[in-house]
């Protein structure tokens, strides 16, 4: 949830053609919708890519966007997985300013969330966290007491459970 709006997670399977991302982005922006997160990666076959798009907005509006995205020539299919049984994961890197005396507390929180410490200096720590987006949100809240220097999140990736393809 961002500002109490339900975030929908769409999986879009596309032909790897120039402009395909722009066409999809335009379908959202034309209707005044924001894309909250976006991950693009090659599918098994190099000719195709898979996009996982997080977007918020009215149900009816999104339903129309899904139809219009599906209609694009380069799109093989576009599915809303929000209410499906799916595994949703995200990775985040967080760099915080921590002095030697606070380091213990920071590492305790990190350990609780299963984070890895991937960089360490006298004044800072970089943590790597992988998991459900909600878990990363919770970590963010806990870590706020330290000075956060930088955050990078990959955005959600998703795969439907079971033997079917997404």
């Amino acid at each position: 949830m961002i500002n109490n709006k339900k975030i929908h997670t769409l999986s879009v399977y596309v032909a790897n053609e120039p402009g395909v991302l722009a066409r999809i982005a335009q379908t959202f922006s034309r209707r005044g919708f924001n894309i909250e997160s976006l991950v693009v990666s090659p599918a098994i076959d190099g000719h195709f890519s898979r996009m996982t798009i997080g977007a918020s907005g009215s149900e009816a509006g999104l339903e129309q966007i899904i139809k219009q995205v599906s209609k694009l020539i380069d799109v093989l299919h576009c599915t809303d997985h929000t209410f499906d049984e799916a595994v949703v994961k995200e990775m985040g890197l967080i760099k915080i300013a921590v002095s030697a005396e606070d380091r213990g507390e920071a590492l305790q929180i990190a350990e609780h969330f299963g984070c890895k410490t991937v960089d360490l200096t006298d004044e800072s720590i970089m943590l790597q966290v992988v998991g459900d987006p909600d878990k990363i949100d919770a970590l963010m809240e806990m870590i706020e007491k330290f000075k956060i220097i930088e955050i990078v999140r990959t955005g959600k990736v998703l795969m439907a459970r079971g033997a079917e393809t997404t």
Partner: protein
Amino acid sequence: MEKMEMDGAQALIRCLEAEGVECMFGLSGGSVIPIFDALITVPNNIKFVLVRHEQGATHMADGYARATGKPAVALVTSGPGATNTITGIMTAHMDSVPMIVLTGQSVSWMLGKDAFQEADIFGITMPVVKHSYLLKETNDIPRILHEAFHIATTGRPGPVLIDIPKDVSAGTFTGDLCAEMDIPGYKLPHGEVDTGTVREIAEAINKSQRPLILAGHGIMISGAEAELKQLAETLNAPVTTTLLGKGAFPETHELSLSWLGMHGTAYANKAICACDLLINIGSRFDDRILGDPKHFCENATVIHIDVDPAEIGKMIRPDHYCVGDAREVLTELNKHVARLNTAEWLKTLDGWKKKYPLKFKRQGGLKMQHVIDEFYKLSEGKAVVVTDVGQHQMWAGQFYKTDHPNNFISSGGAGTMGFGVPASIGAQLGRPDDTVIAFCGDGGFQMTECELATAALHNLPVKFVVLNNHYLGMVRQWQTLFYGDRRSGVDLEGNPDFVKLAESFGIKGFNLRRPGDVKRIVKAALAYNDGPCLINCEVEKVDNVFPMIPAGKRIEDMLIEEPKPDVKLEKPTGST
């Protein structure tokens, strides 16, 4: 496998030939010189029509495609040549017209480096095309051409743009001219209609007592006129069409209510409010026909049949729907429906037809409606009518009844002023044996009047009817009705002498000023076939189109005729 020495441009012309292109509209420029050269070096039967402005090329291609049902091609250069086509592409996109736009482009290695006459036309046009390509390999030309024609003409048609860098068209072609398509993402409704869905629709229809068929442009795109007629006659149900659906069902048929919507007939609009079942086939529930969408057909069962799944539920959520080609769906539907007891309903509609006919005052000065009506009578309703956009367009729709498909050509969705002149030229090139009448206002006419040269050059017998009220009349009408008659930015003082203008292009001109001369001059214009002619009609400066549903108002709030002067109307809340 056919292989021979050639460059990309020559391969391109061969591919256009293979696609059956008969006519191409365009304007040359630096980046398309190789393609223009190939038009000479490759033997071909393509008639190339040189225009005066690239917007004209796209509207001509559009008029040609709408008049013939065949895809049309525009060929222009890069940069400004390409950007000048945008209005034409958008117009075709809004009205689902098959069109291929070939744009030249700077050389590949200069892309994105602000080269001379470089514009990112691929990016600029993205929201207004069905699909587009940036050609990167000379050997891809046949595959992409083949895909482009396939995409433009199938399913819901639309414009496809191909941007061709100069090095790609000038490069050596070593590929296969018969390359296969590769568009796994392109989905067309399957050939087989879902019979279960159609049965469900038939059941709903068979329960109706006050059915109404709404036929859109999709009927003509699909070629489903006979199937539609069979459905209407089987059910004994009335038919109304959209403006672009004019010709899908004969307007002189006793079951026809003509077209509906903002300036449609009062009886069609009343029928929409009173029906218990609406069968929409091939119309996208455009805002011009909905009034206030929240109250549209509130108490009726709504059925929507459309080839484009994205149209289902976009504006109106139907009770039943079927995604498919209109002709295929209607063929199946016709198997499951029977005559309904509509005698009482048709009687009511007949009463409305008599009570609220389309009419105009014969007294006073010259009226646009009078001129259009006379053209209708003297051409026996057989002409191909092309309109521009504005008051005259609505009156052309009202007073020139259309009985045959593809005989009423108008920019509906986009409302593109300047469409009329070039589109009528395209229509005449596509239908050389038919009479083509272009009804234009003085405003829209001046936006593309340079194409008179093209009409004269090809000796096309188009009748350019300039319905000249020296106003941008539709906006003036809104200002009169809703803005206290404060006329702002609508007076077209400084219009040229249109007859002299025509004569300067070598075109025959007529002046028409008095109602008493209408018959004589219309007759003379229709009889003139030595080339184009222009009829400048000095019509009354102020006249308003009725019926009118103010934008965003409920259909029930339709103004059937001019409101009394003391009636104060609110500003419309709907879009334009």
